[in-house]
């Protein structure tokens, strides 16, 4: 026999009351979203059927392995570029620009940041005069992952005299 509704309601009231701090943290986290140490933890909340990754090369198209070269993971490179693109999409001055231009502006800003704050983990890091930002698109087609890549931004640091 199923339990009476009153038992269920009593249980709900009990856990609402007893776990009140848990519920407060839950609601605050969902409201304030990404404001450390709070977070709404939105990672992997979507499983699109196409995605992409970013990487860097020098002007000769030799891969600059991001972690070794700049001291940050390639995952963070993508997060940085994505965050800048969403800012450009919201800004009235830039929201109507084509998607390629958003990538170019966001990419250059991110590459400049990493170049200026680079922290070489595995010396000697590879030399570069220009950093190219590549986007590799991945698509799932008939159980196979297909890839295609193209350059979305280039950054040439100023040479200090």
């Amino acid at each position: 026999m199923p339990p009476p509704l009153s038992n269920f309601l009593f249980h709900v009231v009990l856990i609402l009351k007893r776990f009140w701090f848990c519920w407060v943290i839950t609601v605050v986290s969902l409201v304030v979203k990404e404001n450390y140490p709070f977070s709404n933890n939105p990672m992997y909340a979507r499983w699109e059927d196409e995605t992409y990754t970013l990487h860097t090369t020098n002007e000769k198209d030799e891969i600059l392995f991001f972690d070794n070269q700049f001291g940050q993971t390639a995952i963070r490179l993508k997060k940085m570029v994505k965050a800048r693109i969403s800012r450009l999409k919201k800004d009235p001055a830039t929201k109507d620009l084509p998607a390629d231009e958003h990538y170019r502006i966001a990419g250059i800003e991110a590459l400049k940041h990493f170049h200026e704050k680079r922290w070489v983990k595995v010396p000697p890091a590879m030399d570069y005069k220009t950093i190219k930002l590549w986007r590799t698109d991945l698509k799932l087609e008939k159980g196979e992952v297909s890839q295609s890549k193209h350059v979305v931004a280039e950054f040439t640091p100023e040479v200090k005299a």
Partner: protein
Amino acid sequence: MNWRKWFEVKEFEFGTVEMMLIRAGFAYALWTSFFFGIAQAAQTMPVGLAHFMDLSFLQDTPTYQALRWGFAGALALWVLGVATPLATGYMLFLISAVGSLRNSYGNIHHGTQVIGMTVLGYFAGYVWSWLKKDESRSRLKRFLKPDRQDHQRATWWAMQAVAATYVVAGVSKLLISGLGWLTGLVNLPLHVEKIGLQHYFGLGDMGRYEHAKEMAAMLTSWPLTSLVVVGSGLFFELFAFWAIYSRWHAFAFGVILWGMHVVIAWLMQLEFPMNCWALGLLFVNVPFLVLWPLRRLGLNVR
């Protein structure tokens, strides 16, 4: 089987030594794993404390080192149970400041967030105990030397904060994708391969990309695996508050959520060591598991 037992809510009774070992475990995890990668941070896209203050002082090496040693002192006070509102308040401030700066240039990462919430739970618990009305002990005494009940409240609130981080993750998935999150899992192989490729572009380690391709091929061959293994994670995240019903619930959920992180680390190569620390110390409660047989042997350690 009496299913009512599954829904029994019981008081958590922590022992003094047990709580001290939990705090010592967290202190070790915080000291060895929290203070990394701040040199490259910037405040171009502020989050948290970075909205309200300039955090660049953290990038001044001598200042940062001094603050870290202050943190070591705070950890020691907290583990010993002395002036805990002050100690955890300082810890929460520095964790929030460092975490905010580290996430304030468009590079949000969630590896240490759970530990920030744990310390928030401890801090809130100690402050509550310190400020509440209690005729039996003066405020100064409660501030300087919290008793077992005060530590008990702080530990209990920290548990609730950890449970909340999982509930939030589950709710966010449903808010963003609805139940489509489950049906979308057919695309998991694509994302597994993408992460492997990112690891290769980061470290030049082809092994991690090869592993990702293997995992992606396996998941494509057995799509039900994604649904059962990863999909069940959504259930355990949403109902993570069930973990705080009793010690048994906490143990069971701790093991399951810990297992979920192990599977995610294997399949997707995404690691969350801080979450494993929090689960191991507060939910699985390794200190209790160590002390319990000693008590059975007649040793008076609680």
